[in-house]
């Protein structure tokens, strides 16, 4: 890969201005996946001097700086507590510590990587992204936006709440991308069921979530119906890691386990 110029931004406004100058000016985040992305970058923009690498607890929400590394995420007591620690669990299952020390949460999101293990739990946690220009935007809205999104992600906000969570990643080896990952959460009667690495980018099972929301109690039959709805609602594809059929079967098994976990349902 080729980089023409490298600059450490002294402010978010400066980073944004340079980003707007040319489409091949790029924010490099931690640089972990740089080799997988653009072969030529005109100006590589480094945000490391901007203090965006910390996690803080506010009155109503948790703020995660966009430059927070995956290793910081997994070690954070705040993150380990939220939604039964699904974001921390997801981070610690990503390859080795060396890459988790450079890969950032912002980089994981902005790449819109299909294989991401981070986007899946964040979606189950109703994560909101805070950009320099676009201000607040849900993670889902960002993922639906057009591919060339030239803005500076400042932080990720997660509303503080009492919620249950479940995350599972199925991978062939510890260092491989997931065949499938799944996050399930429950906040009172609100459910989120998210499948990632389908191999496409994570998506929610809205109909199944709504079905569970409308019911006061769960039973074996209800869970099975929700699982079938979730699995038929999301599309699964084939790549070298697994077939669509295999992914569909995995989705059913782990969606069921996820719903059982967040409802404390025991058969």
């Amino acid at each position: 890969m080729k980089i023409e110029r490298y600059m450490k931004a002294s402010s978010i406004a400066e980073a944004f201005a340079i980003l707007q100058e040319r489409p091949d000016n790029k924010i490099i985040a931690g640089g972990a996946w740089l080799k997988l992305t653009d072969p030529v970058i005109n100006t590589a923009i480094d945000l490391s001097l901007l203090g965006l690498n910390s996690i803080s607890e506010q009155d109503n929400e948790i703020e995660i700086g966009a430059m927070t590394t995956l290793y910081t995420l997994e070690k954070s007591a705040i993150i380990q507590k939220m939604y039964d620690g699904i974001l921390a669990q997801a981070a610690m299952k990503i390859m080795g510590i060396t890459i988790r020390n450079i890969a950032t949460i912002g980089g994981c999101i902005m790449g819109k990587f299909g294989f991401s293990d981070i986007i899946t739990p964040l979606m189950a946690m109703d994560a909101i992204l805070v950009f320099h220009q676009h201000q607040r935007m849900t993670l889902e809205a960002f993922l639906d936006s057009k591919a060339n999104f030239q803005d500076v992600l400042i932080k990720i906000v997660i509303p503080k709440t009492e919620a249950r969570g479940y995350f599972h990643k199925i991978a062939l080896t510890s260092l491989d991308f997931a065949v499938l990952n799944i996050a399930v959460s429950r906040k009172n009667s609100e459910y989120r069921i998210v499948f990632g690495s389908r191999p496409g980018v994570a998506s929610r099972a809205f109909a199944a979530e709504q079905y569970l929301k409308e019911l006061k109690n769960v039973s074996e039959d209800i869970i099975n119906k929700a699982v079938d709805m979730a699995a038929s609602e999301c599309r699964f594809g084939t790549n070298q890691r697994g077939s669509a059929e295999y992914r569909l079967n995995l989705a059913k098994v782990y969606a069921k386990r996820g719903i059982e976990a967040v409802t404390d349902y025991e058969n």
Partner: protein
Amino acid sequence: MKIEFTLNNRTISTHILPGEYLIETLQKCNIHSIRRGCDTTNCGVCTVLLDDKPVPSCSVLSAQVDHHSITTVEGIAHETEKLSAHFGKEGADQCGYCNPALALAVFALRKENSHPTSTEIDEYLVGNLCRCSGFKNQNKAIAAYFEEEAYQEEQ
């Protein structure tokens, strides 16, 4: 472009290309312990410590380490020697290609956790691949190293 960083407690001031990776810069600085493996962050043989944290030098741009500190195995020779003795005792060595990176990862682990369990050792080193050893004897050697260090600290 010009960068300045600390390499094994020495200040280095050098010119780099904007797209140059740390592994290349370190090799130009006559650091020969860093090996190039997969070049895509998977294998861990290019590990160095950036501000005491293990990172893959194949995927860190040299420009990113400006005004930071880098440690290679040359900077922790004494610790490496002690660890190597345990590797020898446990038969954990074969080609040795991954050893410098492994020593650095163990050094970083010790800073975070001086009494790791066998599982914690495995989890911490999951990104440091070894094609020869099968990992069992490495784990035993590292556990023995931690035991000896703990014993010596108690004395």
